[in-house]
């Protein structure tokens, strides 16, 4: 088991190297000209100035050397300098934005888990009732609802019409000393992310539970006269949730994709908002840094899910050791 963990952890940098090589090749092969994007439409910039910018950014070097310079920055941990947004090391810029993003995605994830468990379990308990029908139909319909639309609808209702909640940001500008953790600012972003990701997990819980309830051991427990609720919570639910362990990684990826849109709408000071601004100003080092960090999260999430699965499910633990 420990050997396996070590082995997986040692392959992590290798995969990240692959990701870095892939994205760098993509950038090198594309016809993108960073200096032109920086200078813009201004024609008054002389060739000498452009050459100076190129030297400053290391763009006059051959691509392979540029790649190794960048790798050096990655190993050193600063990921190179951001070009347009701040002119500071990329990691510093990302680091200051990481906390709010992780908090937002984490809250939404917990909301999705709780909501999905409750709705999915009730849908199975009252199978084929109107409640089950509602959960299924709403779940099916909501998979198509774009998160940016849901965000705007919630804004319209709660911020513009009812004026109950603030429209964006993280704290009150008129009273900046009122504390940084004003929970009213969290409700709409978390709600948007949770609502748009909810249906997927709810339907997963429902289908998985239904499948498990046809298993022999569930029937057997019932035949023994075990209480229906006890069967559900002791035998069916833990086993139904088992496959979810493998999906955590990809699901967190989905949440992060959603957070790009939601953070932009609510002006949340997180990574998604940063990614959008880096894209708008064509700040490649920053964008590459965020991409690298994103794949790191997905890989680490998958690794974690894999190990978790081994801990949770004894059936697959044995043969691999």
């Amino acid at each position, binding site marked *: 088991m420990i050997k396996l963990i070590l082995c997986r952890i040692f392959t992590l940098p290798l995969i990240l190297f*692959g*990701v870095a090589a*892939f*994205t760098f090749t*993509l*950038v090198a092969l*594309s*016809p*993108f*000209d960073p200096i*032109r*994007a920086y200078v813009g439409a201004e024609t008054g910039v002389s060739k000498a100035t452009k050459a100076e910018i190129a030297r400053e950014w290391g763009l006059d070097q051959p691509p392979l050397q540029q790649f190794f310079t960048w790798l050096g920055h990655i190993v050193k941990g600063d990921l190179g300098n951001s070009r347009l947004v701040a002119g500071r090391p990329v990691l510093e810029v990302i680091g200051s934005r990481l906390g709010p993003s992780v908090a937002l995605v984490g809250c939404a994830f917990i909301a999705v888990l709780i909501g999905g468990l409750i709705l999915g379990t009730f849908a199975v308990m009252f199978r084929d009732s109107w409640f089950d029908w509602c959960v299924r139909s709403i779940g099916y*319909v909501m*998979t*198509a*609802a*774009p998160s*940016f*639309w849901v965000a*705007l*609808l919630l*804004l*319209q209702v709660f911020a*513009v019409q009812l004026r109950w909640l603030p*429209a964006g940001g993280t704290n009150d500008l008129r009273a900046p000393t009122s504390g940084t953790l004003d929970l009213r600012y969290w409700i709409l972003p978390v709600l948007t992310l949770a609502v748009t990701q909810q249906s997927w997990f709810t339907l997963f819980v429902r289908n998985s539970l239904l499948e498990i309830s046809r298993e022999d051991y569930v029937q057997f427990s019932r035949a023994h006269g075990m209480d229906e609720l006890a069967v559900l919570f002791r035998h069916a639910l833990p086993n139904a949730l088992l496959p979810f362990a493998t999906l955590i990684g*990809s699901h967190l*990826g989905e949440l*992060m*994709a959603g957070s*790009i*849109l939601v953070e*932009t*709408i609510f002006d949340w000071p997180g990574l998604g908002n940063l*990614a*959008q601004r880096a*894209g*708008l100003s*064509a700040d*490649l080092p920053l*964008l*590459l840094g*965020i*991409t690298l960090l*994103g*794949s790191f999260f*997905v*890989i680490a999430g*998958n690794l974690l899910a894999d190990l978790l699965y081994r801990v949770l499910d004894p059936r697959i633990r044995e043969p691999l050791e």
Partner: protein
Amino acid sequence: MKFIINEYPSVAEQTRRGILHRVPLRVAVAAVGILILGFLALGAYFIRPVDARSVDLQRVLNAPSFGHPFGTDEVGRDLGIRLLHGLRVSFAISILAAIVAILIGGLAGLVAGTLGHWVDSLFMRIVDFVSSQNHLLLGILLVVLFRPIMGGAAAIVLSVGMTHWTTMARIVRGELLSLRERPFISAAINGGANRLRLGWRHYLPHLLPSMGLGLVLLVPHAIFHESALSFLGLGLPPHQASLGNILADGRRSLLAGAWWTSFFPGGLIFIVVLGIGTVGEYLRDLLSPRWRSELEL
């Protein structure tokens, strides 16, 4: 002598008996709705083009009324007409993007499946990498890289195409691997068919149905991706109104109290994605039930 008794008619037989009698209501509604919307979007181009003449500063941000059932936008254009034009642009870009994705995926799957060995493992590693990436983030990177040269529309097509091809590549490769074991393939090889002929004459006709189905299933994803990028300001230029652009415009008027400029564009994206998705999923279950688990796009 009959060893196998067919109790149930085959899928082909069922299809011949009249598919229309068994189509669920929601699928029928979705299909008709999408067709109507498609015709309206095409027709809007001929009825009333959106240009400088449709700007009317007397009617800025009018609420929905009899004259303008969907209201007017921030420069007084009729939102309904504008939405139909946006729908046409969005449809065109997403269908094109889905075709690009299918072509890239099909080609990658074909190469990996026929050449095998290290090419196969290399391609599959790339597939693993791309599918593990955050599609929207990678899409933003691609748009940034290619927009200055290709323009917004082509960059979006490329961005969607290059992030959504992996499922198709996996499916094509899988089908190829199972096809390879079939007797008619060894017959063709023994008959002297070279790789090109094998691919074109024997593999491709078997792959076309799944590729067509993949196309239908990808279109909603492409619409979502396109509108998300345009909404973030990383897509089409403002004068080419797509659904995402119109929604981004509407967002500006939201705090001024105009709900219709964001409600209707987003609602249209929602309806279109839901409709095409419903039809696509129905077709998928009809044509190949074993895809159900494989193609969770």
